[in-house]
């Protein structure tokens, strides 16, 4: 178990505030990137389904299917974007804070 003083030092470390602020903002923005398109999609499904029945040119395929697939693939790519930054930049910052605070 760590002593309270380590925690105080982390708390007062300027990089800690920066880390938390940046990571929290990033996570919230990405969550919105997933939730806003998803719930917009669900609202169109509920209120104006005809919109999704439009076909792509002469094809029988409607815009509903590629949009649905895009929701799945796009959300997955966003998880990739998140871990790229979290496992790189944010983790380096965390290690730095921990190292300096526990020294």
């Amino acid at each position, binding site marked *: *178990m*760590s002593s*309270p003083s*380590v*925690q105080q030092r*982390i*708390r007062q470390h300027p990089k*800690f505030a920066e*880390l*938390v602020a940046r*990571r929290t903002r990033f*996570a*919230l923005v*990405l*969550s919105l990137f*997933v*939730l806003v398109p*998803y*719930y917009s*999609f*669900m*609202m*169109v*499904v*509920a*209120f104006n*389904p*005809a919109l*999704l*029945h439009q*076909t792509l040119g002469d*094809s*029988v*395929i*409607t815009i*509903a*299917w590629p949009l*649905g*697939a895009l*929701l*799945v*693939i796009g*959300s*997955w790519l*966003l*998880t*990739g974007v*998140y*871990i790229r930054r*979290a*496992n790189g930049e944010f*983790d380096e910052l*965390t290690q730095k*804070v*921990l190292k300096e605070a526990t020294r």
Partner: protein
Amino acid sequence: MNRFSKYLGGAALALFAAAAVAAPGAMDGVEKQPVNVSAIAMFIAFVLSTLGITYWAANKTKSTADFYTAGGGITGFQNGLAIAGDYMSAATLLGLSSLIYAKGFDGFIYTISFFVGWPIILFLMAERLRNLGKFTFADIASYRLDQGKIRTFAAFGSLTVVCFYLIVQMVGAGQLIQLLFGLEYNYAVVVVGILMMVYVTFGGMVATTWVQIIKAVLLLGGGTMLMLLAFAKFGFSFETMFSTAVSVHKEGAKIMGPGSLLSNPVSAVSLSLGLLFGTAGLPHIMMRFFTVPNAKEARKSVFYATGFIGFFFLVVAVLGISAVVIVGQDPQFFEGGKVGGKIIGGGNMPVMHLAKAVGGDIFLGFLSAVAFATILAVVSGLALAGASAISHDIYARVIKKGQADAISEMRMSKIASVGIGLVAIAVGILFKDQNIAFLVALTFGVAASVNFPVLILSMYWKGLTTRGALWGGIAGLASAVGLVILSPAVWVKVLGYKEAIFPYDHPALFSMSAAFLVTWLVSVTDKSAQAKQEAEAFEEQYIRAQTGLGAAAASAH
């Protein structure tokens, strides 16, 4: 211990063989199929290899940390496969594909809703879960709150979800195996229960994880192969596939967009909230975050899991649509050979018939074995989560107040595993022929309204107090269970009343709101000294959640 595992494993196999031989004589009714030799052979190969792994894992399972979390020594990639394995049950393969087969795009909306929770779990929870938790989700919920009350309540929440989900899986297992293997229902349930007990009791999380990984690889591989075989029939053209499907489906072009299934916005939102946040409240899924060494690997595992699950869901969509053409027009798959009539084996079978149509009996056998393996893996994960709630939370932390020695806690975890196995067999037999569709809504409803609120608030909100968490949890539980009872799935379909009092099948919109509201209200009005201490303890928890300072590390192997 290992002699025991060998003995029990042998007994399970012998029982399985005996059941397979005894089955034809015991069969009656229209649903059962002749004994499927290739399916049984492939399944026995799966069972033998997983028992081998259990034997190996039993040697590695020495401490409680090994039992609960495989010592935190699983890599992100392995854990990603295992999470995907936990999440993709036989219901995913059979249920979602048959929904798309029957309803077209409406089924795809369900598929998407089952998926979208994963990125959110990564962004908002994965890291904090790993940094704060040790063995179970109750560790986090009760981190700075009253151990006796909140840990007991969280363990109770876990056990409730585990129980409901076990009933769904066991009944599904019995029916599926009876259908695919020609094995009698009760034998099937007993075989699944015993194998699950063997994996969990002797191999703990190490064995459960590897069973999960093997199953995920088989399911992904089998599903992809089936998709390629089916898609080849359309010359790998989406245009051909969809246009043929539209021309033969009884609803025609309606299957290409949203239909009647989610026309009500309240219903759509309630369903999506339940699926989204229910996923984040499933105890066997959350437990997987503690099997990796650190937050970095936890994040990676969600990235891989999300990729595998997303890929598989898209595969399932292609399977559903191609089944419309390939299965939907073939008289051999309909009762009495009447195309458009009742599908042989019931509404969940299109994907199995598709396997037979494009890959013959051998491929059908392979997919049947995969479906069985899938059920086995999911129930093992559930049993382990349930056993941990009993032995780690209730026994070691609440009854023994953290003073239990490792040997007695290990003993308790094994007793609990066997107990849950017996309960699973009992409920499997008890609920045979019952209409259990509502249990899925109940599982996700309780997970989203009881487990999720206390978990997310304990991590994010300083003001959460023991009293607030307890009353909020009770409000969530009571409203989720109450609303499901009053919903069409129980009130009309099970109890036989004419009209449902609560018109929606999924309670989450209302029960989650109730849980959050009550938690907030009781917490802010809680002026006790304990509430003050709990708010002060948030600081330490917050720093650990953000940095991993003091987080449980991987034990050496």
